[in-house]
């Protein structure tokens, strides 16, 4: 018998890493995602005979990772919304690691999905669907703190799910940690996307609000998520990540994005939280206004731009009036002969 191929050896090593469930209720099918904190497996729930996703911390005996996974599970259990993945179960593996079971979300990340969405209107509608669960979480007192195109799943029917609540915090928790003088963030080594960070920060470089990047826990609130959403809007129209110290308005304009929408994005990405939209609802209102041809609060139009916008919105009515006037003129001319 000839030896196993390199691919088979690699596969067997991977299989050996898969979690073992003491209850025997779940059978792993594949690894479907791996991050700094944990790995997500596709599995079969043998009791209910359905596919589920199971998240497990990467390291054994890590109190910090276990704490975060438990917190994430609780956040998901609290946030019941169609745009937030529901949690089904929480348990421990044979090796003692905590795991939680959630709905298996079929689809692609926004990063992948956006490549196939050419229509600007459709991109905006997609963005609005992302705003809803985030606004809901804020209303429940939770901040996501890591909103990126990679953490948004888009289903087959265009449904949107905001994923990866592993570093989410409740507003009260953030305030309490500031009062206690404790750091509210995990270690710097857990910054995503290969970014280097000074001090204690958590999030993804490019989509992380400046106050979050500084590790300034006391000023991190829902406006940090507004910044992340601004980053997602920027991504949807440029296919890139926001560039620190670059003007997002100018970059959007270079890509041919309309001034009002570029201004909306720039306001969401303002470095100073005071200059940003203060809530997701404000951002959503401006996006809806732009989509419906109304003026946005982030952009001061010139008279010409206002007239042009009026013309675009009321194009049919204007054409009808013009046609009517033309006809009346023609009738008057004919009658005058």
């Amino acid at each position, binding site marked *: 018998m*000839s*030896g196993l191929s390199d691919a*088979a050896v690699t596969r067997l090593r991977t*299989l*050996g*890493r898969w979690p073992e469930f003491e209850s025997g209720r779940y059978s792993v099918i594949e690894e479907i995602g791996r991050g700094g904190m944990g790995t997500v497996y596709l599995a*079969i729930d043998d009791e209910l005979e359905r596919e589920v996703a199971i998240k497990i911390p990467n390291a054994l005996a890590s109190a910090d990772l276990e704490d975060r996974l438990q917190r994430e599970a609780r956040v998901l259990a609290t946030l019941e919304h169609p745009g937030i993945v529901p949690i089904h179960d929480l348990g421990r593996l044979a*090796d003692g690691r905590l795991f939680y079971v959630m709905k298996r979300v079929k689809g692609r990340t926004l990063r992948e999905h956006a490549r196939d969405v050419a229509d600007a209107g459709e991109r905006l509608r997609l963005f609005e669907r992302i705003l809803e669960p985030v606004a809901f979480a804020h209303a429940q007192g939770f901040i996501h703190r890591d909103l990126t195109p990679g953490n948004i799943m888009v289903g087959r029917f265009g449904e949107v799910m905001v994923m990866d609540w592993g570093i989410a915090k409740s507003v009260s928790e953030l305030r309490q940690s500031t009062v206690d003088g404790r750091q509210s963030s995990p270690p710097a080594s857990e910054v995503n996307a290969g970014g280097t960070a000074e001090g204690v920060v958590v999030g993804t470089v490019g989509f992380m609000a400046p106050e979050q990047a500084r590790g300034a826990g006391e000023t991190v609130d829902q406006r940090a998520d507004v910044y992340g959403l601004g980053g997602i809007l920027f991504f949807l129209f440029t296919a890139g990540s926001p560039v620190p110290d670059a003007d997002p308005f100018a970059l959007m304009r270079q890509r041919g994005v309309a001034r009002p929408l570029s201004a909306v994005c720039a306001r969401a990405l303002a470095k100073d939280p005071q200059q940003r939209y203060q809530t997701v609802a404000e951002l959503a209102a401006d996006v809806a206004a732009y989509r419906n041809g109304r003026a946005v609060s982030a952009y001061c139009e010139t008279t010409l731009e206002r007239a042009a916008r009026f013309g675009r919105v009321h194009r049919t009515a204007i054409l009808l009036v013009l046609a009517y006037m033309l006809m009346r003129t023609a009738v008057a001319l004919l009658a005058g002969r």
Partner: protein
Amino acid sequence: MEPDDMRGGGFPATRHSAIERIRDGNPEARREAFGDLVEGYWKPVYKHLRLTWRLDVEDARDLTQGFFADAFQKSWLERYEPGKAKFRTFVRVCADRFAMNMRQSSSRLKRGGGVQTLPLDFDGAEREVASRDPRAMPEPEEFFHQEFVRALFDKVVADLRAEYEDRGRPIPFTLFERYDLEPVEGVSYAQLAAEFGLTPTQVTNNLAQVRRRFRERALDALRGLCGTDQEFRREARDLFGLEVE
């Protein structure tokens, strides 16, 4: 079809380290332990001699046979000191020294006589050597480790196949072979289910069972080939990322 629970009779008793067992005063126990070590290490040694030392087929065969025969007769492996290196590294270094000595007295290289010949499948090992690109060779230690893992998994997979065949239940292993070991592009659970007259959930359950058995057997075999429990835990963590008792 539901998978059997094979945790009972099919699972071999936890193996003690073969390195400990070769120090046993009982000659039969020593011979058996030595056989386990040869089984786990002969292929890495042979491939190391062929590809790192660039020996030709005949020399590598003779040296591999000679190395293990000498090790048995002169009790080299019993001299292993866990504090100094992993057992795997110790074996490789011993093989290097042996090859160096043989090269220095090249007249002794073509021997054949006087060496008790072990029944080793050199032709099979040679096919594996031939399939390897000699230009893409890693560092000797890394290469030896890769081949050690391959030999370990080869043995475990062969034992696993025999286990399922002995029980008259070859399908779980066949599924494992088709999906995990030699997958054809695009193979799916649904496809295998249709082919074997199972539901996709049964395919999943059968695969989960064989994978679990593979891991149990691999850890057990690994435990037998490590010098100490500490080394075994380290190797298991490296192999599967697992913390084991």
